[in-house]
């Protein structure tokens, strides 16, 4: 049976169509939208929690969305070891839901930043990154005002010990510098996985970098890794 990808749509999601297009028309995978009130995730082989401004970012980014009916199903889906990818606001929602550790603060310099940045693969252990090599550099766009990842010292030590840091912001040459860490994230973290490696949250938008004609196609490198590992192709 053909593998299927689900893209959750919350009120205020705005990268849901980008994710759908990237999966359906670039990766050629069977893809469907799931409304945030859906509670049946049967037959979904990869679940994407897309970017945007769910519930207008009221209270905190992702704070209200995590109480949407679909999120109970997502909790069970994760417990079963099935793969969930949260991008940008999706990452924020997964943090608020406690599916990933830490929280998001406003960008250190308070600006909303929308541009291509470089990220370095820090771990090739997860279900999403095992087709990449540690140290690989990808150019992927970011678009957020609250992407300043925070976790306390013990939490950071634990992320490092269990190899849960998937990506760090870096220069084009792959160096970690203060300047490259444009939003002030703890340890320049751009993406993390859960302990089991079946949930990935990342602030950069690989689904927006899928076509050479649009100037950047490094997102395909990332999704090829995801598709190969999860055998979605």
């Amino acid at each position, binding site marked *: 049976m053909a593998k299927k990808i689900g893209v959750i749509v919350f009120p205020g999601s705005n990268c849901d169509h980008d994710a759908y297009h990237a999966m359906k028309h670039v990766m050629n995978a069977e893809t469907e939208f799931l409304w945030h009130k859906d509670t049946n995730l049967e037959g979904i082989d990869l679940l994407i929690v897309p970017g945007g401004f769910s519930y207008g970012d009221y*209270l905190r980014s992702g*704070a209200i969305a995590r109480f949407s009916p679909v999120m109970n199903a997502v909790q069970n889906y994760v417990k079963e070891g099935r793969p969930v990818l949260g991008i940008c606001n999706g990452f924020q929602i997964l943090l608020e839901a406690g599916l990933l550790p830490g929280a998001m*603060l*406003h960008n250190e310099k308070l600006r909303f930043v929308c541009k291509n940045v470089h990220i370095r693969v820090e771990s090739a252990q997860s279900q999403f990154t095992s087709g990449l090599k540690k140290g690989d550099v990808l150019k992927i766009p970011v678009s957020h005002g609250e992407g300043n990842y925070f*976790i306390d010292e013990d939490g950071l030590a634990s992320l490092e010990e269990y190899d849960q840091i998937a990506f760090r912001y870096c220069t084009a040459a792959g160096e970690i510098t203060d300047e490259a860490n444009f939003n*002030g994230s703890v340890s320049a973290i751009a993406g993390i996985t859960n302990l089991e490696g079946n949930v990935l949250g990342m602030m950069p938008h690989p689904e927006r970098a899928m076509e050479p004609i649009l100037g950047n196609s490094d997102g395909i490198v990332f999704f090829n890794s995801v598709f190969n590992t999860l055998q979605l192709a």
Partner: protein
Amino acid sequence: MYKAKVNITLRKSILDPKGKAAHHALQNLGLNNVEDVRIGKFVEMNIEAGSKDEAYALAETACTKLLANEVMEDFRIEIE
């Protein structure tokens, strides 16, 4: 009926960039005696409860479950 007043602020150990920006602007206004600014949220809730303690407990649940994210925020509750 009780009124719960909740103050939510970023934890002391966390840099508050909005507070810092406001502090800088206050210094530009010549208010040099303002030494530190922290910006947070204020939430008011009317709570139906049998006692002040019960109202406090309900407000505390609201904070820990939704209103505050204890990874990065502290909260203070006053019941009137």
